[in-house]
């Protein structure tokens, strides 16, 4: 069996190694399941709990626990995050659990590039990219946003105080990485957040 390869193939820079203000790491292959359905449905909530161990997130929120999580994407869409290898089985299990209830569960683990962002300056770097309020208090841990970065659609969420994930379509992976790296040069610190 061949090994899965992410779009940006391990491109990584930590603040010290590449002289960037933040850690910027290719998260590699990650499990992602798109789940569309009635987010208020108890069956859906149970299926989410079973698949990733968290409750259904509220609007513009992300719930994470132990490396698994669920991100609110739209009023009828969640993105479930889990290890790459677990996604096919989880997708199948959700399909079984929601049998008879109108929904769509798709394994889209290969459709996106996931970049892990770490460090205190992440909000400032992201504010150079996206029209989102990232001031202290405005985007606490557990917040998520679908927005754009330059010309491409992205989504990001805050997993811990200094730990974030940002995703874009796989085919734009290099553009995403290069844009973030250019925005994270230490000489460009704004010093606002």
């Amino acid at each position, binding site marked *: 069996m*061949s090994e899965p390869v992410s779009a940006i193939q391990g491109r990584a820079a930590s603040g010290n190694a590449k002289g960037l203000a933040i850690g910027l790491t290719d998260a590699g292959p990650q499990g992602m399941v*798109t789940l569309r359905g009635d987010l208020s449905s108890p069956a859906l909530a149970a299926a989410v709990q079973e698949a990733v161990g968290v409750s259904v997130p509220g609007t513009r929120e992300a719930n994470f626990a132990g490396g698994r999580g669920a991100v609110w994407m739209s009023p009828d869409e969640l993105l479930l995050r889990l290890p790459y290898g677990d996604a096919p089985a989880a997708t199948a299990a959700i399909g079984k659990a929601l049998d008879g209830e*109108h929904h769509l569960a798709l394994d889209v683990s290969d459709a996106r590039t996931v970049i892990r962002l770490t460090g205190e300056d992440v909000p400032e770097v992201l504010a150079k990219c*996206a*029209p*989102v309020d990232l001031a202290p208090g405005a985007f606490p841990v557990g917040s998520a946003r679908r927005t754009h970065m330059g010309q491409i659609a992205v989504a990001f969420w805050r997993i811990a105080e200094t730990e974030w994930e940002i995703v874009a379509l796989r085919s734009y992976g290099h553009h995403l990485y290069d844009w973030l790296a250019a925005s994270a040069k230490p*000489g*460009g610190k704004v010093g606002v957040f």
Partner: protein
Amino acid sequence: MAHRLPSGGLVIDRSKPVEFTFNGQKLKGFEGDTLASALLANDQVLLGRSFKYHRPRGLIASGAEEPNALMGVGEGPRFEPNQRATGVELHQGLTARTQNHWPSLGFDVGALNSWIASRAPVFSAGFYYKTFMFPRVAWKHVFEPVIRRAAGLGKPPKEADADEYEHFHVHCDVLVVGGGIAGLSAARAAAANGARVLICEQTPHWGGRALVETETQIGGMSGADWVRGEVTALSGMENVTMRTRCMTSGLYDHGYALLYERVADHVPGAEGTPRHRLWRVRAGRIVVATGALERPIPFANNDVPGVMLASAVRDYVRLWGVAPGEKAVVFTTNDDAYRTALALHEAGVAVAAVLDARAEVKGELPARARAAGIEVRAGYGVAKVKGGKRVKGVEIGRLTGMGQVGGRREELACDLVAMSGGWSPVVHLWSHCGGKLTWDAEAAMFRPDPERGPTGHDGAVNTLACGAANGYLHTDLCLSDGRVAGMSAASATGHSRGEMPEAPEVQAIPQAHPRPLWFMPARGKYAHGTKHFLDYQNDVTAADVQLAAREGYESVEHAKRYTTLGMATDQGKTSNINGLAILADQIGAEIPQVGTTTFRPPYTPISFGAITGRARGPLFKAVRKTPMHDRHAANGADFEPVGDWERPYCFRRMTPEGRESRAQAVTREILNARQKVGLLDASTLGKIVVKGPDAGKFLDLVYTNMMSTLKPGRCRYGLMCNENGFLFDDGVVVRTGEDEFLCHTTSGGADRVHAHMEEWLQTEWWDFQVYTQQVTDQWAQVAVAGPNARKVLEKLGGVDVSDAALPFMSYVEGTLGGLPARIFRISFSGELSYEVAVPANLGLALWEKLAEAGEEFGAMPYGTEALHVMRAEKGFIMIGDETDGTVTPQDLALGWAVSKKKADFIGKRAQERAFLAAKGRKQLVGLATEDPAEVLPDGAHAVKEVKAKSRMITIGHVTSSYFSPTLGRSIAMALIEGGSERMGEVLSFPVAKDKVVKATVVDPVFYDKEGERQNV
């Protein structure tokens, strides 16, 4: 002579000398100098030539309003033309050069324009519209090139910009624009109430005029000390962000503002630091505390170097310790300019006289001037300035009641004229987004009307002007107005703790009202001999505005465009009010009836780099790459853009004769696929999953043909029309489950098709139980096409791909060569063909396995051009080639794919319209040229009749045209009027002056009409 004073200069550091170069000459200044103050300190009074007349020009102002002192700053990749010397901070090694003169600044041939203009009415208002009309051809070849060389400002840089630029998005409750007394007060008040405050100041210093007006005391201390205290207090607050060198360039709808921060202009080349940063601010409320600008007075020759705004003279003395001359005449309509006389006097510069336009002069400032021994002449004015490249003196006289100089003239020797025609609030930002103004006749100014300010999303006024920008020119009112504005802004954004720092006591000298004075005509014809400049940068005089009015340009917007008043890069900061007052006078209207022209962003010019931000070089355009992209590049791929994707056009191999040409590669790839087997990276193909109990019903409406009858595991080619009945996308639909379909779209059309589906689902068929999801990026897909295709897959093994198990237009899932795969037996080449899809992370592995397994069967990759030729050989249409938004499926002989049984689908009703069913529409045909080697140009037109001269009537055009290596001849498709009835007809295509290509109308399917090759 202008010179550095022995002491003084609040913002310069005399312990830090700075060297710079001006027109190749090494000069010295101090840290804190602007290029303007440093040049003045070196007695560089002549700084440029004017736009039309090439008149010598020097500094008029000290800040953003400076119209004259534009220069080229920097060198090579950091050169930038048209920089205002008053806004350029001096730094070690700065180079500046003057512009718009030839051969030199001192001797300029273009100044002949001025000499001619003094004898004939050229370059006056509407000059371009009136002159050079005949002969027509001369405009293009003679007049325009000459005028272009003579006019204009700086030259564009020749090298690519070496610097980086970025954007920064920030949200705040209250944005305060301007860091003077009003702005700082507003920020304090808003911040004390808990609002998130962003305050920005365009210069490097907080305080505005508080730094200069040393007569004024705030809270028992000097203005500068008070400012220092306020800045310290604000910078200690967590909810306050402060920024200097940050100009608010424009206000837009709903509290969106653009700020232009010059991060590294004063320290160029700092590693990793962007030169400029464009702040994209979303503010709840905006406080405009942008101050006021002084107006010049239009007297004769008011542009001779050495004529300056009175406030600017004061700025140079007090901020930078520079005396702009040795002997000054002050000409004013108000009390404020007496401060300049006093400042000069204190600095040891002689003041020959203060000429005050008012008949009676009583205020305290004039009294102080008199007490200092300065001569004050009430009711006097300047008739004319003497001197060419520098002021030598002024002709003065008594002013009549009408504001003209009458009676006996006197001459005063001087090298500096400080003028003050009163102050105009800076209402630009207020007006950008629709804020209205009212005319205050007593104060002779337009001021913001708070009832009619710009409004936000809720219809409430979201912008508050305060201080001098609001028409309050006196310090005490400025301060209290700022506090009220800050408090109101905070409260409007939900922050009203009711807290307010204590208001300091202000001791300022009261001032009397000014006398409005818009124009100082000398006797004689205005246009001849002497000039009264309004707009220095565009060389517009008072006479131009009067002429425009006489010629009927009575609307201020028309007069502006006819004369170009206010249309230069300074946007008329010093000229607008004077100009419209003269226009009002000429047409006998009141000033408020004439009104102002429209203010537009940016307030001062901003760099293209700042607007561009990160989107340059490799980041200019986002490019999509497939999982196999790097492998293709290593394989000699020549890429072409398809939508946002980069796809291999062909793979150019090395041969003993060198690297293949594109044409050679394409020919090889086609023949190989037809004879053996080819591999195509088809990952870019759009893929949309449609799932739900109503999925079949939904697709029956979206596609022209029936999809609900498709059996699971089967594929069907489908067409999509828009509601006008025109074809806009096509692709193979696969039924992957009872209530689940996978819709393939064109590579460039996936987003469009997905948005189309969602729009219909969300707005029309919201009651359907259907979800759609784009999965284009989830799958890597490879087309394996050619007689040996099955052998390759069989060698990989794991899935039965025999014709019995997997017939044409069917689909199966399985593990192919160890990879989880979906295999579609579909063909766009006409060959035996399988499209294999695997999760994208395994895409490269799939490609490598196929290449390896295919080696013994002659597998070679092929690119998009081979794909295009092969589909054309088969007569398959291509969206965007055979369609252009006006073509129906019936036009393309695809009527078989348009259901006649379905009650409805998108486009059905439209296709029933008479003209879409009419005979004679353009229809798809094939073309065979008489000369088989001749390839028709794409888009070539067929004509009804070839004529030598008169216009020919076209009957259609070529939509696709190639040389077919398979058939050894050229092939083409075309849309021809009544094409289906023209089989066998020979059409003429005039492709060049003396060249007509003849081609016979044939069936568009050129190869394997029976489809035997794909059904094996």
